[in-house]
């Protein structure tokens, strides 16, 4: 009783009735919007995944605060700074452990083709828990790394580097080297392949570089410590030849660097724009046809006393309904394709839906449909009410 009383007080949702009346046209419109939504999600997904791969190796770096030279751009183009800074940082309250990380490029010879390629090499003290990969955190691994001229190799290195068999012997910078283990890390955009070796071996391969100059400092904090507070204290105590970042900050800084120096931001941004335009055109076509078919009816409404503003609202209402009806299947399809892409690339292209993207694409879709509505609405609003008598 109460319900029907309420329902009867609402205005007739003309937009919805009009759309619903033309079933097949409505389905085409929904499919069109869903397609555009899907394209937007895929472009943003690839963009997000690529940006993610530029920095996702940081997930395996065991640090709460990172020390780098102010002149460093990203992990592979760091400027070394004095190891002394680490010792200074270690004395600050809340810092549990301070660990150096060394990095250089070496020429790795593919033992099958004899062709050498640049390989990115990390050096660390095997007694420091610098990396989180389980393969590196066993006593056997630490022992193997302590042997002279040994290295672990990244399974995600490009196949051009050749076989990764444990025990395999080849050359790095013209010096004999033996593979003693494997791990999965990835080199982002900077490296086609990576090696991890002990600091002592690192010194052998990159002599005369001294171990007193480090590329990255990793600080582990006492559990429950406020990283930002420690960061501020460090900032006030350490000289200006090091910058201090939390993990989130260094990840953001480096992905920003890659978006700016490569064209991935542009390419996928363009992809989103094209999807947006395609969607706009499809919805415009649908709305235009719909308005054309209802022109006489709209003119009648104007004749009996409805204003142009009312017709404007009806068309925009139709646009928003199309946006919402198309968005939902578009989102569901995108989730499916994300999972598919994630599987097909074995996790190296991490396609993950984020809340931000869900909201962002929804906003884009509503904008897209409203824009089409605004372009096509003129015809409805300016329809001549006298035309109904023609």
């Amino acid at each position, binding site marked *: 009783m109460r319900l029907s009383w309420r329902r009867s007080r609402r205005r*007739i949702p003309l937009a919805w009735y009009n759309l619903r009346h033309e079933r097949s046209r409505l389905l085409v419109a929904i499919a069109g919007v869903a397609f555009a939504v899907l394209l937007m999600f895929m472009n943003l997904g690839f963009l997000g995944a690529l940006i993610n791969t530029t920095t996702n190796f940081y997930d395996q770096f065991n640090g709460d605060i990172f020390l780098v030279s102010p002149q460093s751009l990203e992990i592979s183009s760091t400027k070394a700074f004095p190891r002394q800074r680490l010792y200074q940082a270690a004395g600050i309250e809340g810092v549990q452990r301070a660990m150096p990380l060394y990095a250089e490029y070496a020429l790795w010879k593919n033992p099958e083709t004899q062709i050498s390629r640049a390989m990115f090499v990390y050096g660390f003290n095997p007694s420091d828990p610098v990396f989180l990969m389980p393969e590196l955190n066993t006593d056997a691994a630490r022992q193997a790394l302590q042997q002279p001229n040994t290295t672990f190799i990244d399974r995600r290195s490009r196949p051009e580097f050749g076989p990764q068999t444990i025990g395999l012997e080849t050359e790095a910078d013209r010096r004999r080297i033996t593979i003693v283990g494997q791990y999965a890390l990835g080199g982002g955009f900077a490296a086609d392949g990576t090696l991890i070796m002990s600091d002592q071996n690192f010194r052998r391969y990159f002599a005369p570089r001294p171990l007193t100059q480090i590329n990255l400092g990793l600080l582990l904090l006492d559990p429950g410590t406020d990283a930002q507070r420690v960061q501020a204290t460090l900032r006030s105590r350490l000289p200006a030849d090091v910058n201090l970042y939390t993990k989130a900050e260094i990840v953001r800084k480096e992905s920003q660097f890659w978006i700016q120096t490569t064209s991935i931001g542009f390419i996928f941004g363009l992809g989103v724009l094209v999807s947006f335009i395609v969607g706009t055109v499809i919805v415009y076509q649908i709305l235009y046809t719909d308005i054309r078919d209802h022109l006489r009816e709209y003119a009648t409404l*104007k004749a009996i006393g409805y204003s142009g503003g009312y017709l404007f609202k009806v068309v925009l209402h139709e646009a928003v309904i199309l946006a919402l009806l198309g968005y939902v299947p578009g989102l569901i399809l995108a989730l499916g394709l994300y999972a598919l892409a994630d599987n097909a690339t074995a996790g190296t292209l991490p396609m993950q839906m984020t809340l931000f993207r869900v909201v962002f694409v929804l906003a884009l879709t509503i904008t897209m449909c409203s824009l089409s509505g605004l372009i096509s609405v003129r015809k409805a609003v300016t329809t001549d009410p006298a035309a109904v008598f023609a």
Partner: protein
Amino acid sequence: MSAVPVQPVSPGAASPGAASPGAEISVQVQTLDYFFGQGDLRKQVLFNINLELHRGQIVIMTGPSGSGKTTLLTLIGALRSATTGSLRVLGQELVGLGNRQLVEVRRNIGFIFQAHNLFESLTAAQNVEMAVELTGNLRQKRQRATAILENVGLGDRVDYKPAALSGGQKQRVAIARALVNQPQLILADEPTAALDKQSGRDVVTLMQQLAQEQGCTILMVTHDNRILDVADRIINLVDGRLESDTNPQQFVEAHTVKSLDHNMFVM
């Protein structure tokens, strides 16, 4: 030129237009001209129209095709803006009014068209409710819509869409939509042209009944000589000029004596 008997309309002369003195005037047109187009294409379609419609009158307007009947109707209905002369409708001067004010005026007028112009996506009741919503009375809109549909004999069709209704039924829904807000003036342009003889007759009788109940003025354009008898007054428009203003007896006599001018009733 046609051989229609010419009875110039002069205000104040003893014509059916000048009903009992003091009667309320619904529509008063004075020295109205109207042009279509601009520049070289400018073409005058209405010439010095003078006309008064009194409250409660049913006036039928006839005349050859292209003589300007629809144009005059749309001007009175505030669907076009007049720029010359004077055009008072329900006490409001329309000449010089802006679009927004014209919309307001239209809300007090019921329109009935040759085509029913119903929303195909809405039921009969919803089509009528669209008109009720204009009054802001959302609570009783359904009630009022069904009541008027019952009045026009469609009580058992309220929830049918136009596609499921016959031509006559659709036109009756359109009439219900025009009448539901009890307008003081009804403008109808060939409302029976698309209907067969019987439905046409029914529709006109219905309009007559409802008009009498609600005391509103009706101006109806028609070529249909079978329905002339409902009129209190018949005016004849030829080439944009008001040529005669008679009551039905005079009209019929005039046209039977001087062998009927077939042009008058071109469908």
